[in-house]
């Protein structure tokens, strides 16, 4: 796009318009912190009350798959950041490549997570479906798995939305919508993607690493 960036009527200039987008997405992300925050608060409260049950329950999660998935998601944040960098430089092909890599890594994460859910199912760890636990505190262990499925499920939902956003932005890049003067959707989509990564950065130790020693 060689002509000047189209500025909506309510803004003085393109710079102000971009600042407004940045502020808007950060306000949204702050609200997301509180959305997930309620779940983290529920987790903290329950773990504080039933530390032994949470230690036992956490040992039932698949730490190998969880750790690999953490690496996959951290790597997807790198490819996303490099995508935003390519957009700033006006490197269209590189931008599309990094976005495709980001979406692909997101799909890999979902595939591994899905496989993990299946293993959880075969081990009778799904509350409300087939939960069975022979040890002590089985109700409290079940509570951990309610939180496990709810938090990872809502996270996976965010990731599916993120993959949709990344694909949409990639299609816009393909059509040549972006330039070094205008790449707000890339930037805003990237910020959302990184937030989903941050949520997982906290979920990983809280779900998988409570008591491994």
């Amino acid at each position, binding site marked *: 796009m060689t002509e000047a960036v189209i500025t909506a009527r309510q803004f003085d200039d393109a710079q102000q318009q971009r600042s407004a987008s*940045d502020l808007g997405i950060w306000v949204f992300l702050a609200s997301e912190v509180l959305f997930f925050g309620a779940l*983290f608060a529920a987790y903290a*409260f329950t773990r504080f009350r039933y530390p032994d049950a949470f230690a036992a329950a956490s040992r039932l999660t698949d730490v190998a798959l969880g750790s690999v998935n953490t690496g996959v998601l951290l790597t997807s944040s*790198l490819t996303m950041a490099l995508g935003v960098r390519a957009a*700033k430089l006006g490197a269209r092909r590189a931008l599309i490549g990094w976005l495709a890599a980001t979406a692909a890594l997101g799909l890999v994460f979902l595939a591994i997570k899905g496989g993990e859910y299946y293993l959880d199912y075969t081990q009778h760890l799904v509350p409300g479906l087939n939960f069975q636990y022979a040890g002590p505190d089985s109700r409290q262990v079940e509570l951990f798995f309610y939180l496990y499925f709810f938090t990872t499920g809502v996270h996976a939902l965010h990731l599916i939305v993120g993959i949709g956003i990344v694909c949409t932005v990639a299609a816009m890049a393909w059509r040549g919508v972006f330039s070094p003067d205008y790449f707000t959707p890339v930037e805003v989509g990237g910020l959302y993607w990184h937030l989903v990564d941050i949520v997982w950065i906290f979920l990983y*130790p809280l779900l998988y690493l409570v*008591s491994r020693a």
Partner: protein
Amino acid sequence: MISHPVLPAKVYVLIWLALITLLLLTLGSAYLRLGWVNGAINLAIAVVKAVLVMIFFMHLRSGHYLLRIVAAAGFFWLALLIGLAFTDIGVR
């Protein structure tokens, strides 16, 4: 936001290496028998990882100060949420 500086790609790769190293550290530390310190290490490493992502990948360092205020406000309210929930345990 005033000027969007383009960081060298090397910076992003180094941050990614740091994140992966921290992931291996948190995983490894979980297998040491340290009692409550295990949880503290895990949480501290998660905070460091999140801050690295926010500062470098999300460009909070070079962004407008308003963005840092908004981000801090989100975590401030989260601290209130969890903090006040725990007063219930404290006074029970």
